[in-house]
């Protein structure tokens, strides 16, 4: 167990930069989640930490040890694969003992440690089974036990739950998190499941196109997204394109004037609003900004309704309103009042 630091890590394949200047510091015992759209370089980053891909530039330090030039077998990183990667010709116990065997732990000393690892993942008594005799969830837990038994400095998880069904995913998610806390393991997990990321992480890293867009807690990412990408990626946002006309004043492309505390500077910008900050109907009347909006499209999603509205010919935005009893569901073509406070919303300079 140790802290892990990744500095200015870069990976290029020919002209293609897949990981671009990634710097992350992970505290001892912290659970960090790497989150981002498909192809953004999460797996590549993780595999560079594990030692399977040589970085084009940058440094990786585990504890006090620089491991950048070390082969995977000298890094002491426990790795759990999406596809489990158990040794099919070994029993569960032999799988779990493998790391200890490689560390020259005597056979007698291995027994209690294997038993302990299997007990941690609630698979005591499965010692003599072969991987093919286990369910997917059990195999995943064996993979976890195998990584834990070697007492790694860092635990690396690459979408460990994506092959499990929804219910099992919930269970194993909780198990992994509990174990990680109990053992105080420094952990990086890769996922593109947002809910998984939000429920498990101490801190999250949002990546896009090989770059780190933001590092922070769930609350920081949701309430203070660093840029438009993060605002759209973590949770949902309604976006309005336009420009800042004066401090505190924002005008949409369609000419709608909005008072917005976050509007500073000048020039083309995008206003991002969280759906729950937007009031609809009577509540909207008393707010600083309120507008008549035309309902273009409404989707029924159970607990919430997704409503696509236009403020003017040019300004479309997506609302989410709770599906409350007694409130009529807006129909396409209707006009409703929407509004939000002056301090709601964040403004980002528009990217070219």
């Amino acid at each position, binding site marked *: 167990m140790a802290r892990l630091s990744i500095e200015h890590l870069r990976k290029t394949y020919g002209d293609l930069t897949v990981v671009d200047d990634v710097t992350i510091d992970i505290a001892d015992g912290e659970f960090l989640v790497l989150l981002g759209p498909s192809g953004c370089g999460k797996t590549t980053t993780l595999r560079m930490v594990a030692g399977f891909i040589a970085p084009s530039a940058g440094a990786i330090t585990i504890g006090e040890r620089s491991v950048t030039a070390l082969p995977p077998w000298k890094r002491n990183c426990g790795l759990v694969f999406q596809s489990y*990667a*158990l040794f099919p010709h070994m029993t569960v116990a032999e799988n779990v003992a493998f790391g200890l*065997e*490689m560390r020259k732990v005597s056979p007698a000393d291995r027994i209690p440690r294997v038993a302990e690892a299997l007990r941690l993942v609630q698979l005591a008594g499965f010692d003599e089974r072969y991987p093919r005799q286990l369910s997917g969830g059990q195999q995943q837990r064996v993979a976890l036990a195998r990584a834990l038994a070697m007492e790694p400095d860092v635990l690396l998880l690459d979408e460990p739950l994506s092959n499990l069904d929804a219910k099992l995913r919930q269970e194993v998610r909780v198990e992994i998190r509990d174990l990680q806390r109990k053992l105080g393991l420094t952990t990086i997990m890769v996922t593109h499941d947002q809910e998984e990321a939000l429920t498990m992480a101490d801190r999250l890293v949002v990546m896009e196109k090989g770059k780190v867009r933001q590092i922070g807690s769930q609350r920081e990412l949701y309430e203070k997204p660093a840029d438009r990408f993060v605002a759209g990626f973590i949770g949902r946002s309604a976006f309005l394109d336009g420009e800042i006309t004066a401090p505190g004043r924002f005008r949409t492309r369609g000419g709608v004037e909005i008072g917005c505390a976050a509007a500073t500077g000048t020039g083309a910008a995008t206003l991002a609003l969280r759906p729950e900050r937007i009031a609809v109907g009577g509540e909207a009347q008393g707010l600083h900004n309120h507008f008549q909006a035309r309902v273009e499209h409404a989707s029924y999603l159970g607990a919430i309704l997704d409503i696509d509205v236009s403020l003017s010919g040019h300004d479309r935005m997506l609302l989410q309103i709770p599906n409350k009893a007694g409130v009529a569901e807006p129909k396409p073509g209707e006009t409703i009042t929407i509004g939000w406070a002056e301090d709601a919303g964040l403004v980002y300079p528009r990217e070219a």
Partner: protein
Amino acid sequence: MSTTAPEPVAGARTGLAGLLVVPATLFVAIGLLGPIAILFRYSLNQFIPGQFMVDGLTIENYVKFFTDGYYLNVLARTVRVAVVCTVACLIMGFPLAYVLARTQSRFKNLLIIAVVLPLFVGNAVRAAGWMTAFGSRGALNASLMGMGLIDQPLEIMFTENAVLIGIIAVNLPFMVLTLQSVIEGIPRNVEEAAFSLGAGPAAMFRRVLWPLALPGILAGTILTFILAMNAYATPVLLGGPRFQMMGPLVYGQFAQQNNWPFGGAISFILMTATIILTVAAHLIVQRRYR
């Protein structure tokens, strides 16, 4: 597979499967077992020069083989050559098969064709090529002597070494292709898991790659061993008249000596030796790695 699958469906399926193996079974029975049975019967007949084959029920042909040092020597030489060739094919073939199985190169298919390419050339043509290359006045000796590295031409043709090289060259592609297909079936992830758990390349090979590739190793070694035991053209063409192996010996008895009973007996001894050695190796390996 559903546990509620109704019985009749499964029954019909095995029935169909049974039907499908009939052609192969018939072919093996008529094309292979028949001649072997006839050969075995012949091997119990007597041979009287001038009279060709006399019906009988005697083991004298087998006795003749096992009491004559010359024939035992040929058998021993055949086994030795086959074992050396098989081990050499395994040692050289495994790394090649591994690289072929794991390469990400766009030229993978070309590489595989390159491995098989030697088989496009028939045994006789290949041997003729080697004669021009390795003969006492061949290209190799001429250039070595020209450079003054040797005074006497190297004796390569018509030695055991020439036969070994020849058989290895023919058998290597079979070994490589067999191993390659098995290694391709081993997920790369499993190797990486071993590395991440602290296994260096040697330990990974010993504990993970080798045991998982074992079915392919067995298949490849059996294939090359059988091919080497029964080699005919290569020993004749590269070994010369004095280098005898079992394959040419059988042919000689049938075609030159007209001694069918003794030829049959030698065939049977060759077949039995091949089967016994193969099964024995199989059992030993399985016991060690299970």
